[in-house]
């Protein structure tokens, strides 16, 4: 099948009928995943610290180091969370934090080694902004930094911090965060070192359709070179309790959350455009279970994580209480077989 060009993608995004887009995306999903199975991973999102120097305007989670709510998880707390994850038959922990000014590479390598010495679990951790921050702090190249983390036990890298890979938008949303080129660089180096990563996109803030297409194009082009992305995960900006949702930040009015129809449109376009990415996740955490089920017919084939813990979205006022059983029931009710997978999308067991 011929690839969709950027121009075609933009035209579709702006004016195609959503049901037509959905039908096309559904057909591609079926061709890539003819077994009619929807997967999920049992993992825990562990935020080792909420102290962050980046202070992105779309984030409700970060604190200053001096804030009374500021924390760095102790090893005991961390180990307890991992034990609980394994007790829930979890196979992965997603470790992400803020960019804490006092934590150096030693902290990270000691953390990884102590986890690996005690537990058999995939460590999916440290998104590109964290990797870049460490590299800069220690005067290392990105590749050297990733190699050190990998040697200490890091298995794979989450696709967070991508937001929208368009520097025009990044300048508004997160002026202190790494630019598109740096994000892509971390992923390319990680792939080069044999690590798999995911890619995300946070839309529904201040971007234009062109920015979304620019993002998809950057991911597709890197994937052509490396093949290292396991999945693409679009999700929508959640404005609750964030700086962007206030009127006084110099943006035009306050931002309304992306609607269901916006979400489905971005999802279908992602499935159509990213022909070289095997998996597209639906985001029940930001969309709710019902729309996440609908998403399974609009291009998604994976339900993401059971999210034993999700602090960041919860801080923005979104809080769906969902168990693994709910996820399995939701997948089945949507007409698919449900299966637990690992980080690399190998099936662990079917339900």
């Amino acid at each position, binding site marked *: 099948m011929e690839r969709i060009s950027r121009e075609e993608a933009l035209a579709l995004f702006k004016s195609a009928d959503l*049901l037509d887009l959905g039908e096309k995306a559904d057909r591609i999903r079926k061709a890539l995943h003819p077994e009619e199975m929807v997967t999920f991973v049992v993992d825990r999102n562990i935020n080792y610290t909420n102290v962050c120097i980046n202070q992105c305007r779309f984030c409700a989670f970060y604190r200053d180091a001096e804030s009374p709510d500021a924390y760095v998880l102790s090893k005991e707390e961390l180990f307890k969370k991992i034990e609980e994850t394994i007790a829930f038959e979890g196979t992965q922990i997603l470790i992400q934090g803020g960019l804490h000014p006092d934590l150096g590479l030693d902290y990270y390598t000691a953390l990884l080694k102590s986890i690996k010495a005690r537990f058999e679990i995939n460590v999916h951790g440290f998104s590109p902004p964290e990797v870049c921050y460490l590299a800069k702090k220690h005067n290392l190249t990105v590749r050297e930094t990733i190699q050190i983390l990998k040697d200490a036990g890091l298995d794979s890298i989450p696709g967070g911090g991508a937001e929208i890979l368009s520097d025009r938008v990044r300048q508004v949303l997160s002026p202190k965060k790494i630019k598109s080129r740096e994000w892509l660089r971390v992923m390319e180096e990680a792939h080069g070192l044999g690590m798999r990563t995911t890619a995300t996109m946070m839309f529904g803030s201040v971007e234009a359709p062109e920015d979304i297409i620019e993002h998809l194009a950057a991911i597709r082009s890197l994937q052509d070179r490396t093949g290292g992305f396991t999945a693409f995960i679009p999700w929508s900006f959640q404005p609750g309790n964030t700086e962007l949702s206030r009127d006084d930040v110099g943006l035009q009015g306050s931002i309304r959350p992306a*609607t*269901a*129809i916006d979400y489905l449109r971005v999802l279908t376009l992602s499935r159509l455009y990213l022909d070289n990415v095997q998996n597209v996740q639906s985001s029940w955490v930001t969309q*709710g279970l019902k729309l996440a089920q609908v998403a399974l017919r609009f291009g998604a084939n994976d339900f993401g994580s059971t999210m034993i813990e999700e602090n960041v979205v919860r801080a923005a006022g979104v809080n769906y209480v969902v168990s693994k059983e709910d996820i399995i029931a*939701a997948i089945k009710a949507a007409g698919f077989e449900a299966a637990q997978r690992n980080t690399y999308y190998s099936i662990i067991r079917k339900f």
Partner: protein
Amino acid sequence: MLKVISDRIKGGGRLSYEEAVGLFKHDDIFGIGRVAAEAAERKNGKKAYFIVNRHINPTNICVNRCKFCAFSRSKDEEGSFELTIDQILERLSAVHGFSEVHIVGGLHPEWPFEHYITMISAIRQKFPLLNIKAFTAVEIDYFSRISGLGLEEVLTKLKEGGLQIMPGGGAEIFAEGIRSKLCPEKISGERWREVMEVAHHVGIKTNATMLYGHLETFEDRVDHLFKLRDLQDKTGGFQAFISLAYHPKNTEIGGFYSSGIDDLKTIAMSRLILDNFDHVKAYWIMLGEKISQTALLFGADDLDGTIIEEKITHMAGAMTGEGMTREDLIYLIRKAGKTAVERDGLYNEIWKG
């Protein structure tokens, strides 16, 4: 199959029972959605309606205690409440700018029928222009039993007091076997339709509903929708149809939430079967704003209201917020590519933009 059906519907033909069951079981949600959306557009153009309304539940004390209801209480049970007529008037006076009041409650063991007439008349007197939508068929049947009056007399008295519209609740699912498991205490499906027929006859407009996603089959859903279609052929008194997704939490039957895909398909199928209904509502408080908005592309033309007080669904674990503003609703409608129209209780246009 879809092409043949689509062509026939465009020519004014109808779905057969077998075709409807076949489509319900069919996997092609896009094709079904498209045909339903076209049918909706033929009826209402690009319009999607909403209403600024106010819900009042006068009491949650109920002699029925249906198994799927998390709202009802016994008289002396913790959490039971009853509002006086003055309290109801106070609540209605507290806010402005709404065109309809929607009143449903439990079947109170002690209140006489006169109490309800007084309630409606008092609201009518204080708010002469307000559309009063009140009492499901289940309540009307109860009023008939406690007063010893026939349905026609009960409904005529309420109409004289100021009642204009009745909500469509209490229809649940007509299929006997399921209904007796779901709500053995409640009036039969036949009685529900009888009440509606008399209401239409005395000049009260009503809605119709279907509760789905519990124990019923697709055949049961089609049977339900066909019975509504038949009655509407006879009376023409139904304004809108509302499919109500079952909420499993805190109820005796348990089970799971219907899938978002099923919700959309049910909207589309009701639009296709109920060709004699002007409106199909995607009731956001039941479906959530995300599915409701998406339903506007699957045959729905109405999101219902900004609801300031809605206790019944939330006690059953609804995952939606308790209120949306007028601006929220307009935004959702526009983002679905539709023209937002604020209506009153009788679908008169109040505002369009």
